[in-house]
């Protein structure tokens, strides 16, 4: 038996997140939280085993590292391979088909997270009976919400099927273009449910907005902290989820860098390795590894952009920014609100595209000057996604580096975990409900842990309670 009285709590597995993770909470002799960490215990390995494969396989092969937002990897790899074949200036049909695919994915992924993963916490309370904190209970007590989540997800998945060929792991995007257009019949099928999707998306923004505003005082102290924010933005500063230059801003909105050419990302972003996690820690080079970390994802995108180019989403963005007087919002729980703003933006973009005749065009692929090194960057639902490849003269991939959004959010998630653990767990008897508070902070980021490392398992999380000598005192596992 340990002679010291310091303790460690382990949450393993973390539930209602995509992937497999573990939280360790170290308690001192007085029961105060000394340190808390999120460990990612999966290993990905994709960068290694795609070496030697032909480059045109990348958009189809690399997306297999995830089943939740494979479209992000499909499109990031396709954007990278566009440059290998000199086809980065896509035809209007190809670019719009890819954008439709991407907005469909954003719509379904955000809906999945909000309605299926996050809503149990928001509707029933962070410390509610675990029997209640799941999507089945949501469907039972709030059947209309449960239905909306399922139907919104289905709508996004149908868009993916019509643009990529399959709901999961399609093959639509190819180097230099796309392999199909949208038929009139497909377009008309999507138009049937469009108005309903807009109604539900508006309602979801209101739910998320009301929750955040009504609980603002709690949210301000719930794993919140000041941070830099990064995303790609369009040349005119508009939010653009598919393409744009990199922009990073400080916690109070000052520009760190702007409109950075995607091919030069490595001049601005580097990655640090820490011994206790398989996930790397990216940072902004000009600030350094200690303070150069940043947030990505819906909160960072809404903070970083100058405006949203669809009217309804822009209106709710302005309402969101007004809460912080136009300055960046650094509240962790505000991710939910921004995620729903993007969901509304996505459905507005879908509407715009469905009425665009370019989607029925036949000019699908373009090629030009061959290159050997390439970077493709896209805004995945969870944040900025980097795909970097080197291809040899035989068309084989010889180097690949992927920086996925959850990796960029690694340090922020650790900060959120530690903040919540210190506030809610210190000096108290550790209960399941209190441990869920830690998970709520992680869930706000909608992390995809399998993506961020290298998936071998399901998606649960573990919490360990350990004393000062390192002895394990308690473990809670779920999932």
């Amino acid at each position, binding site marked *: 038996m340990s002679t010291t009285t310091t303790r460690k709590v382990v949450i393993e597995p973390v539930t209602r997140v995509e992937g497999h993770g573990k939280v360790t909470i170290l308690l001192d002799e007085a029961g105060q939280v000394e340190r808390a960490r999120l460990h990612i215990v999966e290993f990905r390995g994709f960068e290694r085993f795609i070496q030697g494969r032909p480059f045109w396989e990348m958009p189809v092969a690399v997306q297999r590292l995830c089943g939740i937002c494979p479209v992000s990897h499909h499109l990031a790899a396709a954007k990278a391979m566009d440059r290998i074949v000199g086809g980065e200036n896509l035809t209007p049909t190809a670019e719009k088909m890819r954008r439709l695919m991407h907005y469909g994915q954003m719509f379904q992924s955000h809906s999945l997270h909000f309605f299926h993963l996050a809503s149990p916490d928001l509707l029933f309370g962070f410390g509610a009976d675990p029997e209640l904190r799941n999507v089945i209970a949501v469907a039972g007590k709030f059947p209309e919400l449960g239905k909306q989540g399922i139907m919104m997800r289905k709508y996004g998945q149908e868009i993916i099927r019509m643009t990529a060929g399959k709901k999961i792991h399609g093959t639509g995007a190819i180097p230099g273009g796309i392999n199909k257009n949208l038929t009139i019949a497909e377009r008309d099928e999507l138009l049937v449910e469009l108005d309903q999707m807009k109604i539900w998306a508006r309602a979801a923004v209101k739910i998320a907005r009301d929750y955040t505003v009504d609980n603002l005082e709690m949210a301000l102290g719930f794993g919140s902290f000041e941070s830099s924010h990064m995303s790609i933005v369009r040349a005119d500063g508009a939010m653009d989820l598919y393409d744009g230059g990199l922009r990073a801003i400080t916690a109070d909105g000052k520009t760190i860098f702007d409109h950075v050419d995607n091919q030069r990302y490595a001049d601005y972003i580097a990655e640090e390795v820490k011994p206790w996690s398989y996930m790397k820690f990216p940072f902004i080079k000009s600030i350094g590894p200690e303070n150069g970390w940043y947030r990505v994802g819906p909160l960072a995108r809404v903070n970083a952009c100058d405006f949203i180019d669809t009217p309804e989403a822009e209106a709710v963005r302005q309402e969101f920014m007004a809460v912080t007087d136009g300055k960046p919002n650094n509240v962790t729980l505000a991710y939910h609100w921004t995620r729903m703003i993007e969901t509304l933006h996505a459905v507005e973009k879908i509407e715009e595209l469905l009425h665009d005749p370019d989607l029925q065009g036949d000019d699908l692929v373009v090629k030009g000057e061959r290159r050997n090194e390439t970077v493709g960057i896209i805004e995945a639902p969870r944040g900025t996604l980097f795909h970097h490849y080197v291809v040899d003269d*035989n068309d084989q991939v010889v180097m690949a580096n992927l920086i996925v959004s959850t990796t960029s959010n690694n340090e922020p998630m650790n900060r959120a975990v530690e903040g919540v653990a210190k506030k809610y767990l210190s000096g108290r008897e550790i209960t399941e409900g209190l441990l869920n508070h830690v998970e709520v902070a992680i869930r706000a980021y909608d992390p995809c842990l399998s993506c961020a490392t290298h998936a071998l398992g399901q998606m649960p999380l573990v919490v360990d309670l350990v004393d000062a000598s390192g002895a394990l005192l308690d473990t809670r596992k779920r999932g």
Partner: protein
Amino acid sequence: MNDEIIFFIDGVQVTGRPGQTIIEAADEAGVYIPRLCHYPGIEAWGSCRVCTVAANGRPCSACTQPITTGLVVENDTETLREYRKSIIEMLFVEGNHFCMFCEKSGDCELQALAYRMGITAPRYPYLWPEREVDASHPDVIIDRNRCILCARCVRVSRDVDGKAVFQFVERGPEKKLTVNAEARLKDTDLDVTDEALDVCPVGALLKKRVGYAVPVGERMYDQEPIGSDIESNTDAAPAAATEVEA
């Protein structure tokens, strides 16, 4: 001289011609016998054994066995279906077949046979062999991970293209497809227009930079199972095949 040969497949009377193999006559009659190494118009090989049938009770490959008058062929029986499934499963485990990202997916005969036979997972352990990829040619790639040693490319290159670019070396588990050159594929006289490139049943021999151009839903086997084209050979079927009492 009589130019008709009457024989039977699974109790159905089939009319063939002298010199035909069982599989050739069956194809014309609209009866599908699964196959992998067989390819119309080139020398029969008989190596994959997927087309194994029982001819007068004796197992043989339908692609090499000539038809004879009165021959009784068993094709679609429980025993033979199991043998064929077993062969297909062994082909899957002895190579590295990742259908999920293979550009031949949907057009692959091995995959299509597995679907037709209802194979969801092989019953044998995967061997995970180390196989070499040869991407040295500017327009063609050999991915030996997917090669099933059917020799279609060997025969077509030799007999149709007149080049003999491909050959096998080694034996048993070590047997592999190689090229007729000191070093790599780029050192051969293979051209991207060679017919040998169009006959690979799997994704082992591929033209570069054209993968995934056909969308899901429009690939060869997305709509109908492999063999459907033969089974829908209605021009031949009514005239050539008549059900009779066995």
